[in-house]
């Protein structure tokens, strides 16, 4: 029993370190890549290629003055960024990042828990993450923050449905809610081939769910200054940021897991395949941000409710019908 606990504790620690490093370097990667797309250099002064920039940013943010706006709801104001970050980190407990490997003569599975409702847990946790945004915007007692969080709640509720429907057809094809089983079901054929529509829906929904351009209305700087985190600074802001960037990694990892066969791939070890596939989607996220202008709020809502959800329902029905008639 204690061996299991130790294993879980070690895995959690490694995962946490890995994720926080990934978050730190996501910020650098995004800044460098966006700069490259715009024919600039981006941060390149701290360390070689600016590789120590995230460290410098972190130190700066930690030592900033802890600021609380007047008439803010102090307790909620403090809790909101924590919710945002913890929800983003929690998801990784159930997402597998590789097949079982042999370390120190023990067979170790590269996931914290193979929950039989894994994907539901992921969707649930990402919905909880929205509370961070909503409460953060609400508690700060700032009209821009409030508008940003209102937009965010409307957006995330709309696009969660899209994601849910895309996931539903994947779950139907795999016959399981466990992410490990879903990956194993793609041993022969990736779901991106059998479920292309669900793949696109999931991708669009994922961009909207993580509040990324072109769906970054909750923090549309031209209209809302910084949206929900207008009144946040220092480490609390860093936590929101961590939540946002970990969300991108989560969505990329999920896309790779649900549609691109997770760790399945020739020659290279499974973990490398997961990393490569995840990076491909992270790159796509940044590429999209460099390319597209922000959509209007009514366009955003219209796209979800009038187009994507209908397509999603149709996709689920067709998938179910085909599976019922032909079998898996």
């Amino acid at each position, binding site marked *: 029993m204690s061996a299991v606990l130790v294993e879980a504790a070690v895995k959690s620690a490694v995962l946490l370190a890995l994720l926080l490093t990934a978050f730190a370097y996501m910020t650098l990667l995004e800044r460098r890549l966006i700069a*490259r*797309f715009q*024919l*600039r*250099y981006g941060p*390149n002064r701290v360390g070689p290629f600016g590789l120590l920039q995230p460290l410098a940013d972190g130190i700066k943010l930690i030592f900033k003055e802890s600021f609380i706006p007047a008439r803010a709801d102090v307790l909620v104001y403090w809790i909101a960024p924590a919710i945002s970050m913890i929800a983003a980190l929690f998801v990784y407990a159930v997402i597998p990042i590789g097949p079982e490997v042999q370390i120190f003569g023990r067979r170790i599975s590269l996931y914290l828990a193979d929950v039989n409702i894994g994907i539901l847990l992921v969707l649930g946790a990402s919905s909880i993450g929205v509370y961070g945004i909503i409460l953060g915007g609400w508690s700060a007692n700032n009209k821009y923050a409030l508008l940003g969080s209102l937009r965010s709640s409307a957006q995330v509720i709309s696009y969660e449905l899209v994601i849910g429907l895309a996931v539903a057809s994947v779950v139907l094809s795999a016959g399981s809610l466990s992410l490990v089983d879903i990956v194993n079901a793609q041993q022969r054929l990736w779901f991106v081939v059998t479920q292309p529509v669900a793949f696109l829906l999931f991708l669009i929904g994922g961009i909207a769910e993580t509040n990324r351009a072109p769906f970054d209305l909750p923090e549309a700087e031209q209209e809302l200054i910084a949206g929900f985190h207008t009144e946040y600074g220092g480490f609390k802001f860093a936590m929101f940021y961590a939540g946002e960037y970990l969300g991108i990694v989560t969505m990329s990892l999920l896309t790779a897991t649900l549609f691109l066969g997770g760790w399945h791939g020739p020659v290279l070890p499974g973990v490398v395949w997961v990393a490569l596939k995840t990076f491909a989607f992270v790159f796509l996220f940044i*590429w*999209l941000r460099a*390319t597209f202008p922000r959509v209007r709020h009514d366009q955003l809502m219209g796209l979800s409710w009038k187009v994507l959800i209908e397509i999603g329902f149709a996709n689920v029905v067709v998938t179910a019908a085909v599976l019922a008639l032909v079998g898996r």
Partner: protein
Amino acid sequence: MASLVRQSLALLRGLLIVGRYLFRPRVTTAYPDVKTRVEARFKGRHWLTRYEDGMERCVGCELCVIVCPSQAIYVKAAENTPERQVSKGERYAEDFQINMLRCIFCGFCEEACPTGAIVLGRDYELSGYTRESLIYTKPMLTEPYPGASGRDPRREV
């Protein structure tokens, strides 16, 4: 349906166009390491120029003081004496100060100057740790030798 496909393809094309820029050379100059070329008529730090024979051009007329829109120039004129002939006119500038914090580098002083004494040079790295260090005094502004500012000392004006 056809329009949906067309719009989706347009989005894809947009992505590809932006993607192409990933492989183009950067336009940014890595400034402190690499410096940009300064144009011929660039207006940078001022110089008080001399004639070929080392005589100061400034005659202390204070026209630059009058024309300066940000009132950055201070001139204290003094009479030339036969024993001490500093400039070619009746008077010369005993003290000449330019407040680089006030100067907007419009170049009016250069245009107003009847003898072509004050010119705007090429140097643009003008910063300091104190305000006092940025009030340039006459010894700092005067050319150490004729032509040090890069202007021809034989020119008329």
